[in-house]
C-alpha cells in the first residue's frame, strides 16, 4: 500500500499541473475578456483563490505522498 501511495504522489502532482493549466487558460483568463462585471469577479476568484489552493495544495499533498510522508510508519 505504501508503494501505491508513493506512486500516486506523481499523479497528484501531475493533476495539480493540469488543474493549473485548466484554471488559468480555460477557465480564468477567458473570463476577463467577456466585458461582464460578474465574469470579472469570478475570473479573479478563479485565478487568485481557487487556482493557488488547488495547485499548491494538491502539489504539496502529492509531494508529501511521493516522499513517503503518508507511509504507515510515519502516521
Amino acid at each position, binding site marked *: 500500500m505504501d508503494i501505491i501511495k508513493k506512486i500516486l504522489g506523481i499523479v497528484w502532482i501531475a493533476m495539480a499541473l493540469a488543474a493549473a493549466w485548466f484554471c488559468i487558460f480555460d*477557465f480564468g483568463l477567458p473570463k476577463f475578456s467577456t466585458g461582464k462585471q460578474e465574469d470579472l469577479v469570478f475570473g479573479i476568484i478563479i485565478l487568485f483563490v481557487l487556482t493557488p489552493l488547488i495547485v499548491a*495544495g494538491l502539489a*504539496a499533498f502529492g509531494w508529501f505522498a511521493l516522499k513517503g510522508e503518508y507511509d504507515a510508519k510515519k502516521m
Partner: protein
Amino acid sequence: MSDKSTRGIWKVISASSMGTLIEWYDFYIFGSLAVVISTKFFPDANPTAAFLSTLATFAAGFVVRPFGALFFGRLGDIIGRKYTFMVTLLLMGGATFLIGCVPSFETIGYAAPILVLVLRLLQGLALGGEYGGAATYVAEHAPKDQRGYWTSWIQTTATAGLFVSLVVILATKTVLSAEQFDQWGWRIPFWISILMVLVSYQIRKKMHESPAFAKAKSEGKTSTNPLKESFGNKYNLKFVLLALFGATMGQGVVWYTGQFYAMSFLKTVMNVDSNQVDMLLGIALLLGTPFFVFFGWLSDKVGRKPIMLAGMLLAVLLYRPIYKTMYETVNLENRPRAEAGILPDGIDVEKGEVYLLSSANYIDGTVTSTRETYELDESKTLGMGNAKDSKTTVFVNDTDKWTLVFLVWIQVLFVTMVYGPIAAFLVEMFPLKIRYTSMSLPYHVGNGIFGGLLPAISTYLVTNAKSSGDPKFYLEGLWYPIIIASISFTIGLLYLTKKDMTQND
C-alpha cells in the same frame, strides 16, 4: 452515560446547535432574498453597484470564510472555544440585523451597496469561525465512543438553517401583501435574527468552557501560536491536506450539489416554478435531516471513513441517472396537451414592447405559463415577428412533484452520509491545542471554495454544452462534482487510516 451527564450534554448540544442554526439562517436569508436585495441596493442599470453585488455574493460566501476560520480558529485555540463562538454569534447577528436597517440605494446612493458588502463580509468571517468552535465544543464534551452521534446534531444545523430561512420568508410573504413585502417586509427576516441571537447568546453565556480545553489551559498546555503549529509544522500540515483532499473537498461538492445545484437545476434549467421548487426542496430537507443523526450515530459503530466514502461513491455513480430522471420527469416533449390559450399581458409603449401571456394545460395535469416579449414597430403598432424574449414556467403535477421530492431526497441522503460524521472525523484528526484552527481551515476551504463555487462552475459547463449543441447539455454541469468527489474518494480510500482518525482521542 448517567442521566445527569446525558442532561448535561443535551444542554451543550442545544446551546451550540441553536447558535449555529441561527448563523446558517443569517447566512442563507441573504441568498434567499437576493432578488429583492439586488433591487434595493444593487440596481442592475448601475455597473458599479452590480459589481459590488457580485463581490458580495462571491467574496462573502467563498473567499472570506477560510479567513474567518483562521482568525477565529486561532482565537479559539488561545482564549477558548466558548468565548470565541459567542463572539462569532454576536458578529453574525449584528451584521444580519444591520443589513435589514441599511437605507436603499435610492436614499443614500453608493453608501448603501458598500455598507451591505461590508456587513456581508462580516457575516462570512463569523460563519468561518462559528462551525469549528461549535463542533469542537460539542466533541470535547461528548464521550469518545459517542462523538459521531453528538456532533451530528451540529451537522443538522446547516440544513435546518436553510429550512428555517425558507419558512420565515414564506411566512412573512404570506402575512404581508406583495407590495408591503417589497417595500419594507423583506427587512423582517433580517430583524428577527437579532431576537434569536440574543436568546442564544443568553443560553451560551451560561455554559462552561470545554472541559478538555479548560484542563489544558490550567496546565499551560495550550498553543501560543496555533497558526504556526497548524500550518508551519510539516507533521500537522500533511493531516490538514489529507483532511481537505481526502474528505472535506468531496463532502463540500456533494453538499452543494444536493442542496443547491438541485434547486438551481430545477429553477433555471428545467424552468419549474420557483415556489414549487422551494416547497419540494423543503420537504426533501425535512425528510432527510434525521439521517444526519443516524449516520453520525452509525459512524460511532462502523467508523467515519466507510460512511463518508460510501456517500461520495454513491453520489459519483448516481448523479447522472438521478439528473437524467429529473430532466425526463419535467421535460414537456411528447407530452399530450389538453388545451392552450393566449392572453395579452401588457403593453409598454415607452419601451416599444408588448407582452403576451400564454398558458397550456397538459392531460397529466402539468401546466405551463409562457411570457413572450415582442417589439412594436416604428408606428407603435404590433408587428408580430419572432419574440424578442420568452420565459416559460412549468407547474408540475402532483405525481411528478413527489417524484422530484424523492430524487432530491436521495441527494440529501448522500449529503447526510458525507456530512453527518465529518465534525467528529475532523475533531479526532487534530490535537486539542490546535484543533479549532486546524479543523476549521480544511472545512471552510472544502465547503466554501470547492463547494461554494459549484453552482457557478456547473452553470458554466451547462451553458457551454448548450451553446455547442450537446443534446445532453443538462448533465454536463455534473462533471465538476463527479470529478472532485472521485478524487476525494480515491485519496480518502487510500490515504486515510483508522490511526489518523483516532490519534487524538
